[in-house]
């Protein structure tokens, strides 16, 4: 596990349409990672909160009303102002093609529910410390493999 940065409080925006799960992820990230957690119940609200708060990382569900997770990721990656934001998909969609779609959309990690809370915290820490160059290299590699 990547050790947390002392003295730095990171903000994580979690977007999921299930309130019970939002409450759990908020509790888990606060207790285990010391993060400040903000939640949104749909993609549109998530987008609004992103530009209002500029969180350090986003954890996004896929199946949501209105703007789904993949659309939200593509919207964020398509805007230069948000293209470098660490993004993690947390979903119940377990098929290989869904995972590939998520990675090609530009997420840093594609996690399946149910996920261990420590694994989620580790994934967030890794995504935050991932550099832009490394992120771009991975996306290029995925695009080449997909082709």
């Amino acid at each position, binding site marked *: 596990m990547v050790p947390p940065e002392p003295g730095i409080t990171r903000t994580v925006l979690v977007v999921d349409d299930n309130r019970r799960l939002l409450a759990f992820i908020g*509790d888990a990230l606060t207790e285990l990672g010391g993060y400040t957690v903000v939640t949104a119940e749909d993609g549109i609200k998530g987008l609004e909160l992103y530009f209002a708060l500029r969180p350090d990382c986003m954890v996004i569900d896929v199946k*949501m009303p209105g703007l789904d997770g993949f659309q939200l990721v593509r919207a964020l990656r398509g805007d230069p102002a948000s293209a470098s934001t660490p993004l993690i998909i947390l979903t*119940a969609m377990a098929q290989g093609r869904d995972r590939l779609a998520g990675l090609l959309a530009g997420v840093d990690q594609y996690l399946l529910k149910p*996920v261990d809370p420590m694994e989620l915290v580790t994934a967030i820490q890794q995504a935050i410390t991932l550099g832009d160059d490394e992120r771009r290299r991975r996306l290029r590699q995925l695009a080449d493999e997909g082709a």
Partner: protein
Amino acid sequence: MLRMQRVLRVLRRSLREQWSHEAVRVRGAERGGPLGYARSIFTAPFRVDPAQIATLSGPQRELRRRAALLRLILSCLLGISAFVLLPAALLGQAAAASLVRLGLVIGLALACLLLNYWRRTTLAGLLLIFGTLSIMVHFLVTNPGGIDLQVVLTYALLAVLILISGLVAPGWATWLTALLVVVTTLAGIFARPFAPPLAHAIADPQQLRFAVAGPLVTLELFVAVLGWVSARSAGAAMAAAAQAFERERELASLKDQFITNVNHELRTPTMALNGYVKLLKLRHEQMKPERRAAIIEQAALAGDDLVSLLSSILDTQRLDQSAQALLHEAVDVRTTLEAAVRLVDPRAGGLAEDQSVERDLRMHVPAGLVVWAEPVRLRQVLTNLLSNAVKYSEPGTPVEVSAQVLEAPLELSRRRRNGAHAQPRMVEITVRDYGLGIPPEQAKLLFERFVRLPRDLASTVIGNGLGLHLCKSLVEAMGGHIWVESAGVPGEGATFHFTLPVAPLDTQPLLEATSEHLPVVVAP
């Protein structure tokens, strides 16, 4: 010489490819080549591929069946004529006219095979039937001798032609063939003289004509019916196979939809429950007691969600098995409705847990209206319908519940249009919301197991596609019928109707109907 050899080589290769292509094209061939093709001719009419016929319409299925049978019959006719009858006629030094007729039959069979290959099946069948009929009638008419055994057997053979027309020609052609054959038989038997040896031996020729014509015509008519019935039976069997395949495909799709839906629904509460337990395991010593208590409470709620989902899934299975075991009694509708209202989950209306919104519950239910049902199951049906009304409509919009005894013929005929069995003295209960409504073409799907409308799958409304199926199973187990009426217009909502038998007269007091508007505060 070399050129000739090259041509022969090319011809042999193209024939081999043609046979291979044909063997693959004709369903049932296991390997290519002439043997495979020959085998496929004899097996194709008896192989039914439900996956393939399900994609065809009724007339297309019928055409395919006739094409396969025609190919088999023509191949047999060609084979017998060319390899048995023709050599026999040549060796027996048959008359030129017989050889010409045989040649015509062989030519006719070849022409029909080609037409069938070019997918002109109906034309090929008609040409075979009426062409063969013409040849045989020509023989009967031009036969110089009178009626003898050969002539009578030829008339009997015409019955086989009727049977073949039943198998390979359209229905009208079968009856036309039968009519022509009967007319030909009667004309031949009654208009022609008997052959000299027979003419001298019989005392009453007229009586013999009737004695011969009677069985012949009976045979021909019977065979016409047989041919028509067998063709219709084969068509019905194929239609049933196609329907069964379609139903199986629908069920497989429903099953996949359910698995996807339940997979998604189960993972979320599982993650919350499992995650809270692991969180406690990792951090319970560092947590303050009140924080620990809050985490345990959240874990319990996540566990309740999981149990509720699993119960819904198991309930439908249990109910299907125990539908006959319900214990009916007289149940007051109004009392059960009020109990159901208390069980409706306010959070299903998309409200935050700390909010409360008044919804107008309009009840038009006579006091003392009693149905013959199982009280817990009736409450379950009402709870499901009210919960759906709340879930699929905006907070603040009213929900209307009404009940009435059905006795007028107009009401009964309306119920009959929706598939309910006409029974006297039924109570109809309706639950109406003013929400999103249901597209009319999707209304019947709602009562299928595990089905949710595509619009609802993409929404925030939680569901597993089992509630309405459960309602249907419960209502039908209690002797009623359930259906929905909706124009599919958002704001007009939907009205769910279900009927139940009125309780026996000695169990229900007669009271006047009352209408009430009750403000119901939907709050945790």
